[in-house]
């Protein structure tokens, strides 16, 4: 029998322990992020005595007024509107491009388009914001004779940002559909489009939805690109061309100008807590979609 020296034995144990500590660190980080953001975010309600329902539903945001008002509904609405707008634009385009790449022009898709799209996933958000600011905002201003900084600008910039993400994930989902299914459908005399619509899209639906939800999660949490083009007013928008604020843009703009521990500052942390809660919600949706895929 091979005998192992004591040194080897301790090395084995130390190695395993070090690796385990690294992995455990991930758990600690997640727990401490949740704890710290929650403890700061909840102090608005428990220390400053703002009621949760007022915070979530009131329309008036005037933290420096007398009396101060902490209604963040305009921010929440802004975040949801801009995310929905981005998803409405990017989802059909992204999934359409994914179908084109896999079903209609697969050679070109795999060799050229897919790498290019994956490359674009890595473009930093400030660059999208910069392009929005120098190209899109002036364009909207001239076309519609408005300010330009608007919900529309925010939605378009975010749509462009999440388009590569959606295309890339949806492409993987569609590629995973077994070739046999397509062949069977085509053998029955279905056209290529009938096959795509009834067979390919049907069986890759959870994957395509995952792609859209991932894109929406990214859009909801995006801060700087949105802040640069959305205008940042806390009035409710009357149209797509009106400026508005989002949770992220509100935090970005004001966090540096407020003093730690004041009710105004705490209210911003509560907005961060809302972002955190929303990202948990997105994860839950993604998990549900993932489970569905396993069952089918």
């Amino acid at each position, binding site marked *: 029998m091979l005998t192992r020296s004591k040194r080897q034995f301790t090395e084995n144990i130390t*190695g395993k322990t070090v690796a385990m500590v690294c992995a455990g660190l991930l758990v600690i980080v997640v727990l401490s992020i949740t704890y710290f953001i929650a403890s700061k975010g909840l102090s608005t309600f428990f220390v400053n005595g703002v009621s949760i329902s007022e915070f979530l539903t009131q329309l008036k945001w005037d933290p420096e007024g007398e009396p101060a008002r902490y209604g963040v509904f305009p921010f929440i609405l802004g975040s949801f509107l801009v995310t929905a707008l981005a998803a409405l634009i990017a989802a059909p385009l992204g999934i359409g491009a994914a179908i084109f790449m896999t079903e209609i022009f697969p050679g070109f898709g795999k060799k050229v388009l897919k790498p290019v799209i994956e490359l674009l996933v*890595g473009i930093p958000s400030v660059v999208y*914001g910069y392009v929005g600011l120098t190209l899109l905002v002036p364009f909207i201003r001239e076309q519609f004779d408005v300010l330009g900084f608007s919900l529309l600008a925010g939605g378009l910039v975010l749509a*462009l940002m999440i388009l590569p993400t959606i295309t890339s994930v949806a492409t993987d989902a569609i590629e995973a559909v077994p070739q046999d299914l397509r062949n069977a459908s085509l053998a029955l005399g279905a056209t*290529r489009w009938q096959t795509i619509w009834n067979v390919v899209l049907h069986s890759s639906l959870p994957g395509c939805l995952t792609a859209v939800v991932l894109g929406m*999660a990214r859009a*909801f949490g995006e*801060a700087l690109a949105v802040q640069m083009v959305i205008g940042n007013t806390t009035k409710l928008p009357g149209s797509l061309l009106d400026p508005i604020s989002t949770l992220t843009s509100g935090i970005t703009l004001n*966090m*540096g100008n407020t003093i730690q521990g004041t009710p105004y500052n705490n209210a911003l942390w509560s907005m961060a807590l809302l972002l955190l809660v929303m990202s948990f919600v997105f994860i839950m949706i993604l998990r549900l979609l993932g489970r569905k895929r396993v069952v089918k």
Partner: protein
Amino acid sequence: MRARVMDRIATGVLTLIAVLIIGALVGLLGFILTQGWHKLNLDFLTSPPNIVKAGGGIGPQLFNSLYLLVLTMLIALPLGIGAGIYMAEYAPDNKFTQFIRMSIEVLSSLPSIVVGLFGLLVFVNMTGWGYTLFSGALALTVFNLPLLVRVTEDALRNVPRSQKEASLALGITKWRTIVSVILPAALPGIITGAILASGRVFGEAAALLFTAGMSSPNLNFTDFTLAGPTSPLNPFRPAETLAVHIWKVNSEGLTPDARDVADGAAAVLIIAVLIFNISARWFGTWVYKKMTSGSN
């Protein structure tokens, strides 16, 4: 007959979508590069920015971005690889492992501004360091860890089982096997992932607004001590990175040529990120070819 027509129409629409997307994305890159092209000279890349007059450069910002990247990777790589080793080689199938997996999922979908705020609370305020490069590096570590863990785990799992078994059969301890057999074989995958992660670090801004700060002291590039307040290498000084600079110039730039500086900085940033992405891709295929043809 109607199915045939429908097929034609659908193909046409999908092609149109693909052309539209390619056009938009190529246009985006083209716009950034052509706008910034005239600014790309040595003077712009090395001189410090000018707050009130025209003609400033992005030297310190570029240096800060690169230095922050090195610092982040020094912290994040060992932790990420360690956790990846645990997940691939040790993690038993139990609740704790599931919890780690969920933590990875949560971390990878957290909005970067939330990570930045956590950094502000813990690495900036609680430690008393203030806005420092080191706080920024820690925040970016949090941000990058899930990607690195996932990449390492995948790379380790892709190493053929026979290699591991051969080593274990020779009586080599599990830890030695991991370090000297499995890890080297997985290295190409890990390096590719690390380069991709570097690209993200380079372009990240939202998490850095609240950790590394939005200003840079006057750097003295002849002082290479680690503690001097104007030393570029001092990790405990505030540092504005290139991505943060782009955001700042666009939202509150006072220089008459703010637009010019933004154009140039965006072009530099995008070129850097493209280099990271393309080199990761190129490196991956190069090592793969070398390993598969050189192995027998």
